[in-house]
């Protein structure tokens, strides 16, 4: 067991380094972008503000002339104490507040879509591998692959306009309607699901093919193993061999992929959120980039990076339990 702990700690160490690298990059990239937030806000008024306003704007947003390295260390220090600063685009709201709401919605939408897509895809992949050469196998993979071949936002837009705008079956924007109050009450939860339905549907449709195919591929490889042949030779029924022997082993590599995807859930389904106006992290990031809102950009990047690394580490732990081969 101690080797497993050693292994986990080593992984943790690696993730710490990766986190530091990402956060450093995260600090420098926004500052390397030309222009500064004050100029942007000034120009947003397209001539209505006085040129003298620039000084006032810079004061407001606390844009200093401190040397870059000094700002960097302040940034690291603040990060460690949980101070993400004040947003510029949503002045003067603290970044943590802005991110927390968006975070919840992104986890809700992208998280459930991912779980549905993974479960359904894995199921379908098993089925398809089972009935190799049958009707399902020749129809489903190409069909799902074709759906996945469309640019995601294209499908999303068509879905929005066909079902939302045209037929009026689904709401056109936002995470919940105006008639309900946010909280743990049933009308709100139902409304939230209703609003998430179309975006989630499009996300699932596009990614289903990928999960299905990878499960199918690992199944095919697994089915070639000797122990499977032996199980069949022993006379075990097909279903049992499929599920208890083959699928259980085939799912492991995909589980790693699932873990990584889980982490990326927090980078928000950027395009989904834009098209469906879903108040998640992805859209927030785009706004932050457009407004050169350094604090917000940094905050978002940090949550995303930490989520990805965290999810990866959790998956490492999970695989430690699921796959005895790793416990050496």
């Amino acid at each position, binding site marked *: 067991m101690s080797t497993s702990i050693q292994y986990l700690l080593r992984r943790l160490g690696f993730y710490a380094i990766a986190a530091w690298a990402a956060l450093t990059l995260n600090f420098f*990239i926004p500052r390397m*972008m030309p222009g500064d937030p004050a100029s942007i806000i000034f120009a947003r008024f397209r001539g209505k503000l006085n040129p003298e306003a620039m000084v006032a704007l810079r004061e407001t947003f606390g844009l200093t002339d401190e040397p870059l390295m000094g700002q960097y260390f302040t940034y690291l220090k603040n990060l460690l104490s949980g101070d993400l600063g004040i947003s510029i685009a949503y002045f003067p709201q603290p970044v943590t507040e802005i991110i927390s709401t968006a975070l919840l919605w992104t986890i809700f939408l992208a998280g459930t879509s991912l779980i549905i897509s993974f479960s359904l895809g894995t199921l379908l992949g098993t089925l398809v591998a089972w009935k190799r050469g049958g009707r399902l196998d020749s129809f489903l993979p190409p069909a799902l692959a074709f759906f996945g071949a469309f640019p995601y936002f294209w499908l999303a837009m068509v879905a929005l306009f066909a079902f939302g705008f045209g037929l009026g079956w689904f709401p056109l924007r936002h995470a919940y309607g105006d008639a309900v109050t946010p909280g743990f009450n049933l009308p709100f939860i139902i409304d939230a699901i209703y609003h998430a339905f179309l975006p989630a549907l499009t996300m699932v449709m596009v990614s289903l093919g990928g999960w299905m195919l990878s499960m199918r591929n690992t199944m095919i490889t697994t089915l070639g193993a000797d122990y499977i*042949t032996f199980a069949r030779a022993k006379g075990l029924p097909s279903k049992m061999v499929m599920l208890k022997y083959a699928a259980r082993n085939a799912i492991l590599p995909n589980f790693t992929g699932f873990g990584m995807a889980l982490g990326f859930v927090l980078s928000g389904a950027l*395009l989904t959120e834009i098209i469906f106006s879903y108040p998640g992290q992805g859209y927030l990031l785009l706004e932050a980039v457009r407004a050169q809102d350094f604090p917000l950009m940094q905050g978002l*990047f940090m949550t995303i990076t930490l989520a990805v690394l965290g999810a990866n580490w959790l998956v490492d732990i999970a695989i430690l339990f699921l796959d005895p081969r790793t416990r050496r």
Partner: protein
Amino acid sequence: MASRKSDSILFRWVKGIIHNKKALSGSLLVLSFIMIAAIGPYITVDPNAFLDTPLSPPSASHWFGTTGQGQDVLAQTISGARQTLLVGFATGFFVVLIGALIGGISGFYGGKVDDVLSMIINVFLVMPGLPLMVILASWLPPGPLTLTGVLVITGWAWNSRVIRSQMMALRDRDFVSAAIVSGERNIRIILIEIMPRMLSLLASSFIGASIYAIGAQVGLEFLGLGDVSTITWGTNLYWASNDLALLTGSWWTFVPTGICIAFVSFGLTLINFGIDEVTNPRLISERNWRKYLPKGKGNDGITPVIKNHA
């Protein structure tokens, strides 16, 4: 000796592809688009010219109708193929090149080299791709070079890891030990002995990376992060969306480009399917034994165990 071996591998491989239905249809699909991209712009009307009534539906004079500014949609769709495909395939190429280099070296040498390179690969893997793309694309001057660069930076790590695992698996094989013992230089071993055997992996990596590049590129351009004054499939969709294509019911400005992208990606996917079928030893043997089995049996992919066979 070595070169003849790799020749025959390549030769067998290509022959297998041609005879595979999926790969063949996929290749035809992709090749036809490449042809359209190459020749098309010379035979259509000027896609930039403001010709006719904006947003007019498909008709005899404009087969795909006109855009919100009165430009010919067919001409734009055809012209758009060029840059999109170029950037897509260029990205695929560079991704595989870098992936093979870093993944290959890392997998072959092992030890400290592997530790360092693996670390780099993993750091790039965990960096959130789309946000990084958005930030980089909005900072750099827009254009095909920026797009290729951004896509390569965010996309190379995945293939690198895959190639590295394959390299590690192959390195332990006998023919490599034999080559080392006979005194071949490492570089030669990597390039001449091992790489040809990874051909199918490299090819499917190239195709996979190209699919990713085409999709991501179109996504970035749709957000307006590409150079919107050029004509590509992504910018066509950007303008269509700006002109409220679907709101005004002008589906013809939006649909053709989307379908073209889908066809190209699908074609590439089919090629990948085909490569897989041809080179996956499991699938090869499946095909072989299926010839001998009675109909209906042996459908479940498990090696069949049957009592009598002639």
